[in-house]
């Protein structure tokens, strides 16, 4: 039976912790939705946490959906070749 999608809101003030915590919630074969609507920008540490999260998700065969990712952050993820490792859901384009 497919596990229910859990939603985690990421707070820009504690971004790295938020991403790290999301990693801890990953269940094998499950899906998690990270809401980045409140994140304007991500620094190198946050980006590194995203890399780690992607690796973790791959290990556990989990699907990670990112919501509310603005285009600047999307581009930063793209430069690190991370976009193909996540799914994206934006209700409307975030400029």
């Amino acid at each position, binding site marked *: 039976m497919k596990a229910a999608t859990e939603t985690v809101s990421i707070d820009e003030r504690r971004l790295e912790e938020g991403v790290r915590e999301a990693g801890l919630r990953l269940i094998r074969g499950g899906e998690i939705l990270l809401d980045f609507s409140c994140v304007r*920008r*991500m*620094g*190198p*540490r*946050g*980006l*590194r946490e995203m*890399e780690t999260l992607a690796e973790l998700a791959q290990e556990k065969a989990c699907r990670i959906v990112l919501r509310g990712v603005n285009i*600047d*952050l999307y*581009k*930063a*993820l793209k*430069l*690190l070749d991370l976009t193909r490792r996540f799914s994206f859901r934006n209700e409307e384009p975030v400029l």
Partner: protein
Amino acid sequence: MISEAPKPSDLGPHGATSPSAERIAYLEGLVGQAKVAAAAFTQFTQEDVDRIIKPMVLAGIEQAQYLARLAVEETRVGVMEDKVIKNMVACEFVYNYIKDKRTVGVIRDIPEQNLTELAEPIGVLISLTPITNPTSTVLFKCIVAIKTRNAVIFSPHQRAWRCCAEAVRIMYETALKHGAPEGVFACIESPTFDDSNYLMHHRDIGLIDATGGPGVVKAAYSSGKPALGVGAGNTPVYLEKTADLDTAIVDIILSKTFDNGTICASEQTVAVDHEIYHAALEKFSDMGAHICNEAEAALLASTVIDPQTGCMRPMAVGQKAVDIANFIGLPVKPDTKLLIAPIQGVGPNHPLSVEKLFPVLAVYRAKSTADALQLCVEVNHAGGLGHTAVIFSRNEAIIQRFSEVINTGRIIVNTPGAIGALGAVYNDLVPTFSFGCGTAGGNSTTDNVNIYHYLNIKRVARRKQNHMWFRVPNQIYFNRNAVENLSKFPSRSTVIVTNAALQRLGNVEVVRRELAEATHIHVALIPDFEPELSAVLQGVETLKEHQADQIIALGGGSVIDAAKLMKLVYESPDADLEYLASPFLDLRKRVVEFPTEKIRHVRLIAIPTTSGTGSEVTPFAVLTDKSKKRKVSLADYSLTPDVAIVDAQFVMSMPKNLTADTGVDALTHALEAAVSSYSSPYTDSCAYEALLLAFKYLPIAYEHPDDEEARCMVHNAACIAAMAFANASVGVNHALAHALGAVFGIAHGRANALFLPYVIAFNAAVPAKLMPSPYMQGYPAPAKYARIADLLGLGGATEEEKAERLIWQVEELLERLELPRSIAALGVSREEFERALPGLVQAAFDDPSWRSNPRLPLMTEVTDLFRKAYQGRSISDAGRIAEPECDLNEVAYEGSD
């Protein structure tokens, strides 16, 4: 004190080996963190970046002395005090240049070109820095990198890495404190060439910025990565006799001794005019230079220049003059700043003519300006191409000449070379610590490298609405008896250009009557076909003989075209008509220019005697070249007649077939101008009105030649259609007709008629190939044909249907005018046609007319159009699609849309 130092590593690609696994892991770690930093950096705004830069600059200034001392202690090269200045220039002067410049988002808007430039960072750079200017180069590159949102991994010279690492640390910590992304700078510890080589080939490195010797630069460019490689020079200097000698000598000494001559833009060989040679040496000596005698110069050369390589010995780089002198046993004063060695030429036999990054200067006594320039060119080509040259002179012409013959990115005038080339101190060159040396120096730029070389500049090019035009004669008189207006134009001597038939008809007399009695009148008769060059030149002789100040062209298109060309050559005798007929794509961008200088001025009044070509208002003229069996078209608005008189009395006696042929030509002009890629609302209005007039009155004029109103309206229609195509040009129909007419001798209007239905269908369909044109919005032909159909009241629900009805209307008109409906019907056999077809297609494709067609015709499509015209079809073949909703004769001309 000179000690034998290790040779600078030759960073040529061939000596590289792969670093150890441990070293690779270390390097990968540097790249990984730089890559993440660069990705994070892309999210920064201009304000974020500028907030980081300022404290970095202040930190660099504050630590300038500390870093200078470290550099000298580690490298044993240069002068600490001078390195302080270099460090400060690298911070303060560079900041002053970049502080207000935009490097994020939109960096430049050029509204007049509809262009906007935006900055995109490069990502991760590897920066190779030299031993000669280690900390200043690092400071400079750190500031530029932050300003442009790039991450940098520094790979310093092996003998300078500690001071560089410290400079990087200071910059990094300050940047980090003010918000820069972690990992934005790194400096390789104990760097080796293998490290640099590994990174130069790394897929995550976006740009190599290599400042150093030729080996470094070559390695950078050999890596296959985008690279800025800026390296060695050999600066020639011309000390010209008009120079301010006191200032020049001080400047040269200042520059050549600055940091013990380590700046690669510093002076290397000075060509001194013989008139001031002794005075110059005396002043050098007065200012603390030691002038070597011949033996001393030879000893110096054999010590500081390696006889094997012909290059400077590394041990001398950045050392004091007095230390070099002591090392070789030259008896010099203890405060000697500079060693000056006279040389007699450049090359292997004159070892001191090469680059010397220490205070040794070669001087040459020039016998003349030419001799000095030649010497400087020789030095320039002996390792200094693309880099820097210096001239001291007050003679602007000589400065100009020097600048023309010397190939360097920087030509420094009346300024110390080393500091002048750095920029922003003595001049407005962009401040830098990397001198681009251009392709001659194996570099990709001649610029002083700065922020714009650390950016990808994206250009947003918005569609530009080019200016269009509507140009016709200044004055157009129309309707019956318009010829009376001739009396308004005073003339001392008028030549009436016409043909014999028109003279016989009495038309010349009608014209003559309107001219003042005092006017000398001469009638020049020309043959009644498209003019040949000989006829034109003969006409020019007539104009000259009669000193004409007015030409009246009375006739059809051929006569008016001939008169246009006569006027051109009469006014500008050097005009080469064949040359001026060179093909072009866009009138406003064509290569050939029509003459603008005139030795005479003559007024051209055109009075058409046919209702078709519209030559009286167009800028075109066709010339027949009998020897080459071809026609050439000339086009320029200077050919447009000054006055057009469109008087229907001259067409009343036109024979029926001529009425039909010329009338269809006018109709084709209007139809092609309406859908032309150059069409505009101005030309459209003419084209539409001309079509309304032609469709209504042409059949009447044909069937009732004495109908004055019909004749007058058709005559006006032809002129109005010509105003449209004079500005919008024609299309593929004309290209086909020109080719067919030339091969089979078919009258132009008749040839046009053969293609007209097929060309409308061709243009109304979805094109296989679109015509690139900035003037067109979308593909307008179907809508325009539909508009014409609507104006004619033809009905139809869709654009497709309307185009079909228009084709039907055209076909009906052609039948009514009793025009042949196929090439076959003109007596051309199938075999003859097929034999000619490849040539016809080629000729049509070479014809400039189709270039304004809305649809780009493929050769296969041109072939198909020819075949359709050969076969032809009658209305019954075509099948009537639907009855027009109203009788065309009932469409009110004034009431049209």
